[in-house]
């Protein structure tokens, strides 16, 4: 379903320079969309057009298929539904305290005092700043200000959130937190649009990318499609995402192969496996194309997890009775990622899981879970880029626990399951404190079993 759409949109500044020319975009509901282009390519102007702040010279903007009308009542509706977070938080936060700034939007919508209060409390809790609500903005750090700005927009419960360069001036951990937050909002159904010139971010994070250059749209598509086109990137004065560049270099040297372009580091690592071939002695009656069960291997023969059940497909049989086989490995006592929903949190339970699950690596996602862990002295190995790092640890046969809450649980579960599906490397994923539980807590003996064909 298309939520925002523009048709041959054009905007010219009063001095005659064109800011946006002939722009046709369609933004689908619930997607994560990135506009990528160098500075001055017209991204910020486009955002002001999408929010009804600027009126296009030609063309039109449609919200849910209805063209924008520029009278004050319709504009109010649009601005309620399409929230915008500016690049510089100081431009956006103008009230003397955090609470009052976040309350500004809901109060303007004419909500009752109680409802405004509820909206503000919820928004501040989501961004993890409830404890700072009485502070003046000049006592906050850059990342905190950005989160206040986001809370100010979230408090109006918009359908679309537009963020202009959300990560500028943020340190890496602060940036990760903002992206975690955006993923969470997206998981709850918000459509998120960002502008950035960080190609790595756009490639890794977005579902759909628009490439802009010199006030025109020069390319669009999924990140994998768009960032493959070297010529296009050159035209937009951008470079390839680092992960993709590394992958292409490795691929050119014949060290990696994969069907999809890797987006994250675990995906990149997964492409680093050439065809797994081996010489083996085979029984006389085996034909080419047959499958063999080679049993369980460990030590130096098991490359992906401590124990592996290996099946082989015979590719070629040599006259002397030996054959070349392609190996298919399945980890048996591989690592795994266990999620813990901190909405129903109890310290003894977490401690029990840590002990019985032989967990060696603990991460936390979201402000609430981090605060809980800090309070109860749970040692966190990682607090940013948690999902990727946990997957990498699980690939090395370690067991990880991720403490997280709310929509982030399902988001993480989905991401990790997708990885398992795509890579074909099996490891356990589950939510510890949900009804279906997790397999490995019951499976106590670590003895490897043979994989049946």
């Amino acid at each position, binding site marked *: 379903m298309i939520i925002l759409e523009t048709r041959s949109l054009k905007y010219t500044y009063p001095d005659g320079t064109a800011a946006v020319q002939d722009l046709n975009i369609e933004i689908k509901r619930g997607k994560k969309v990135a506009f990528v282009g160098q500075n001055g390519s017209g991204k910020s102007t486009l955002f002001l057009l999408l929010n009804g702040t600027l009126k296009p010279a030609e063309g039109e903007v449609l919200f849910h298929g209805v063209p924008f009308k520029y009278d004050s009542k319709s504009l109010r509706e649009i601005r309620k539904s399409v929230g915008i977070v500016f690049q510089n938080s100081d431009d956006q936060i103008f009230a003397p305290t955090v609470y009052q700034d976040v309350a500004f939007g809901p109060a303007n919508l004419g909500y009752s005092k109680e409802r405004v209060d509820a909206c503000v409390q919820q928004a501040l809790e989501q961004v993890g700043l409830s404890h700072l609500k009485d502070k003046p903005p000049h*006592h906050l750090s850059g990342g905190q200000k950005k989160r206040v700005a986001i809370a100010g927009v979230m408090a109006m419960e918009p359908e679309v959130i537009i963020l202009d360069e959300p990560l500028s001036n943020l340190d890496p951990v602060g940036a990760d937190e903002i992206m975690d937050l955006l993923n969470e909002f997206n998981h709850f159904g918000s459509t998120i649009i960002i502008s950035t010139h960080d190609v790595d971010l756009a490639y890794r994070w977005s579902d759909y990318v628009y490439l802009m250059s010199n006030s025109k749209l020069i390319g669009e598509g999924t990140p994998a499609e768009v960032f493959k086109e070297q010529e296009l990137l050159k035209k937009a004065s951008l470079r390839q995402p680092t992960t993709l560049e590394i992958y292409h270099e490795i691929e050119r040297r014949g060290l990696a192969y994969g069907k999809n372009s890797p987006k994250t580091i675990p995906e990149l690592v997964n492409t680093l496996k050439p065809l797994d071939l081996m010489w083996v002695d085979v029984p006389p009656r085996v034909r080419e194309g047959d499958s063999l069960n080679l049993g369980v291997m460990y030590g130096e023969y098991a490359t992906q997890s401590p124990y592996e059940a290996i099946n082989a497909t015979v590719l070629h049989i040599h006259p002397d009775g030996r054959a070349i086989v392609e190996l298919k490995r399945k980890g048996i006592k591989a690592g795994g990622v266990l999620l813990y929903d901190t909405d129903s949190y109890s310290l003894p339970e977490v401690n029990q899981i840590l002990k019985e699950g032989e967990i060696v690596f603990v991460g936390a996602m979201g402000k609430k879970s981090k605060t809980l862990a800090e309070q109860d002295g749970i040692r966190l190995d990682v607090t940013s880029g948690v999902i990727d790092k946990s997957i990498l640890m699980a690939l090395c046969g370690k067991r990880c626990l991720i403490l997280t809450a709310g929509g982030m649980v399902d988001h993480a579960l989905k991401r990790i399951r997708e990885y398992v599906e795509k890579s074909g490397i099996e490891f356990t994923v589950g939510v510890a404190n949900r009804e279906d539980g997790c397999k490995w807590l019951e499976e106590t003996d670590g003895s490897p079993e043979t994989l049946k064909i």
Partner: protein
Amino acid sequence: MTNILDDYALMSPLRHRNNWLKLTIVLFGLLAGVSSTSPITPLFIALCMSFTTVALGRAPFKLYLKLLLAPVGFAITSVIIIAFFSGSGQELLSFELIGYPLSIRSDGLELALLVLSRALSGMCCLYFLALTTPMIELFAVLKASRLPESLIELSMLIYRYIFVFLDMALSIKYAQTVRLGYSNFRRSISSMGMLGSTLFIRSWEQGDKLFLAMNSRCYDGKMTLFEVHRPVRATELLLTSAYFLSTLALFYFTKNISIV
């Protein structure tokens, strides 16, 4: 970041107490101090207020002394002049300075002490307010006192942007300093001029951006102010009444006393 009085007030535990109670205490202290005829009551008020500010309000003691020092310096100079040049009655001290006779008389000294104590009590009361009540708490008070809405909105925006522009001015000044903009007097003057003009233009632009930001959150010409309700607690009421009563009693019993 603790550079200005407002920052100390923000961190003070007394910040979260009822604003009206604090204002009443200050107003009472000012009135009682000024209308007292003996220096004892104002001194008592000054002592109580200082104790509250430092012990209950957690204002750093050194900072408090430093703050007091500036106005007290002025007060003492004027008090010396009053002591020497006014009053009649019994001569307490006299000497000659370069052929000019100077003397302190009892009435003059009395008056001087009264002026000093009144000034001190007034300052302590106001510092109590300044160090325990940040500006952001006072907006609600301003609103309740029926000032025009637009004035309050403006003051809220101004308060917020003072800090933005302060940061901006400091970073511009730094940028000028590292490029030797303040190496001599002439250059300092021209650098200051540039700083001022840049700030003016920036504030103009900031106004545009502010309007944009407010509009995109459905601004309809009204900023709602949310007042936090803070009921006065029993202990607070008790302490305050004890303070008021003892001050009044002191006021009554010392009204005809002269200490000189």
